[in-house]
């Protein structure tokens, strides 16, 4: 199954460019022309006009490799994104554990050496070092980790003028191009540049914890993208828009033990900013507010438990006057779902009951004979 995951584009990275890409140059010149004045400024205007026409002339003068063939000269399209990512991503060297090599990727988020990466065993060793894009190697200190979102904050003692300026508002809408910059499969050996992939933002959403504890690799907001980032080694890499703005950081692998399928996603920039500024708490605020403490709820259903907690949720008794009684639930009915959650076993029902809030109505679906029935009922406080 691992072999099926592969990126769509992997191109060797150009070295840092001495001049800014053409597109940026043209934009600046246009802005400079705007405050047009009288004769005294004629010289400036003429100069500006020449600058504007220069790209026209230089574009013709610079044959791109594809012009002759009649194809588009579009080699330079993702320059800004790639340059930004290349200068602001670092390699982290930690402890090897068994045959798992102890190195990963992280991103620079401040001018004084703050780095975010994904939490991992390799960071727990005595010595962690960070390799900057300029080749320097620095010792790093682990500042803190976030267990729920599997993030780690490191600091090196160095000036890092190239860093991702984390925005408080989410960056990247559905459909926007994203360029991912990562060391998938750890294919970049030593000094080699990382792999660049292309995709779009698929969906901005929030992932809940799954029932199976083995599945929890991340819980919180995430940006789903359609570039393949779910390869081992990719976590800690950068996901940027075409203008170089950070959309997020590739998170740890989220793989469902049920289906062996993986998610391609990034931890969003605003969540990363909260992490750096130490605003994240263990209570993940969600639309459903599962974690808020509330009084235990009761529906009045006693299930037939002789076959154990893993048996289907057949109703044994219904308490008189209870919400289930008023909804006309009877013994031998089979509870199928509560509040939209599929109930397969008695244990499922008990778990879901804990989440119900007295006074907040829920939809219950049950099976009676061959018929499926949907009812709404309002749980009361458990006495």
């Amino acid at each position: 199954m691992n072999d099926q995951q592969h990126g769509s584009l992997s191109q060797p990275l150009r070295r840092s460019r001495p001049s800014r890409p053409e597109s940026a140059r043209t934009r600046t010149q246009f802005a400079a022309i705007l405050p047009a004045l009288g004769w005294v400024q004629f010289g400036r205007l003429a100069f500006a006009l020449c600058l504007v026409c220069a790209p026209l002339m230089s574009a013709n003068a610079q044959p791109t490799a594809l012009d002759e063939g009649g194809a588009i000269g579009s080699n330079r399209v993702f320059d800004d994104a790639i340059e930004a990512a290349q200068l602001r991503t670092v390699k982290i060297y930690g402890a090897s554990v068994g045959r798992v090599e102890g190195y990963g990727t992280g991103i620079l988020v401040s001018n004084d050496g703050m780095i975010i990466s994904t939490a991992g065993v390799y960071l727990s060793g005595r010595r962690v070092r960070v390799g900057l894009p300029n080749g320097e190697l620095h010792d790093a200190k682990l500042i803190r980790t976030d267990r729920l979102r599997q993030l780690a904050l490191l600091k090196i003692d160095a000036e890092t003028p190239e860093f991702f300026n984390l925005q408080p508002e989410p960056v990247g809408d559905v459909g926007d191009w994203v360029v991912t910059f990562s060391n998938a499969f750890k294919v970049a050996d030593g000094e080699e540049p990382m792999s660049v992939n292309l995709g779009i933002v698929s969906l901005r959403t929030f992932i809940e914890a799954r029932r199976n504890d083995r599945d929890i690799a991340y819980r919180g907001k995430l940006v789903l993208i359609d570039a393949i980032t779910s390869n081992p080694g990719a976590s800690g890499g950068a996901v940027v828009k075409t203008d170089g703005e950070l959309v997020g950081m590739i998170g740890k692998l989220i793989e469902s033990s049920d289906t062996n399928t993986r998610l391609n996603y990034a931890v969003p920039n605003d969540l990363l900013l909260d992490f750096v500024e130490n605003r994240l708490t263990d209570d993940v605020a969600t639309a459903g507010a599962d974690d808020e403490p509330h009084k235990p709820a009761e529906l009045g259903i006693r299930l037939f438990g002789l076959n154990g907690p893993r048996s289907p949720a057949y109703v044994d008794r219904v308490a008189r006057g209870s919400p289930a009684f008023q909804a006309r639930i009877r013994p031998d009915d089979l509870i199928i779902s509560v509040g939209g959650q599929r109930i397969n076993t008695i244990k499922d029902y008990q778990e879901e009951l804990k989440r119900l809030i007295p006074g907040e109505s829920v939809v219950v679906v049950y099976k009676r004979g061959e018929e499926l029935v949907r009812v709404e009922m309002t749980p009361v406080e458990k006495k």
Partner: protein
Amino acid sequence: MRTVIISLVVVGAMLGQRAIVAQDDTGATEAVVDKQDSSTQAPPKTDEVLQGLRLTPRAFRIATERIRGSLVTIESYGGSSTIEGRIGGIRRQGEGNSTGLLISSDGYIITSTFAFLRQPPAIMVMTSDGKKQFAKIVGRDDTRKLCLLKIDDPSDLPVPEIVPADEIEIGQWAMSVGVGYGDSNPAVSMGIISAKNRVGEKAVQTDANVSPANYGGPLIDIEGRVIGICVPLSPRSQDVGAGVEWYDSGIGFAIPLGGLERIIEKLKAGENIRPGFLGVQLKQNEDGKPGAIIESVVEDAPAAKAGLQPEDVILKVDGEDVVDLNQLRRKIRKLIEGDEITLTYLRGEEENEAKIVLASSPAG
């Protein structure tokens, strides 16, 4: 004088930019060179391409908005667990939410058989207006992994435009859209059409991500019209779950809706279209001799009932010479239950003919 200078400057700047973007009145953007004329047109300048590439996400968003009203969330067990802004992780095959597409104003919804892997007792759908209602399965096409549902109250929900089959071009934009993650907002993946007439000539192939997140959902073009329905498919097997292992791999399949009218009418009539089953185990004939040798015959299957026996050599199918095993398999895979084929076979020295009506596979 000042005005003259400013106009000169502005004109000069525009020449310098040379961004050419055509916008139709709906706001969609056509910044990509028209493919049909690409051989006669001069290549666009880098600036134009940059501009085009910057505007394409907007086109993706507009296309997604156009199809959104026709999307349907299918929850197989009654009670939708779809919540806006939340996903529940990746669920087991056949559980969790699936995607469907409303294709007619009288309430027919098309989706993939993948959604019903577990034979659910009831099917609940939520249409794009948030309304939930029970749906019933009307017909299944197990050769295309499609399933047709019907709801009683489609309200005034929009029905999407379908791309005619002959207009689908290799290399054109294709976006897969689905609600299978559990969020009521759809997830979008972008790619191109990689190939046509794949898997027994039934599907188009795309490199947009196709997965349980969008099986049953539409593959759309840049204008928001439906190219086809995303399904798991494999050239090796017709099992309902075959091909899922290729999720998000750069190889995804969709069944084009253009030209599928006849099949949809059959499904509406309640027909279940199943792969044709002959019931023989074959092996390649030796020494370069033509034909395929029957190794064994499945009891009570069509071949057995027609009198075929082990050691018989199949020489022709419907008059066509059998060159090798794969050719024979490919031909039979295109057929459905109820199709009739004529086999010409050799028994000893004697050539015989048998007309056989294919049954459905005993596995289901």
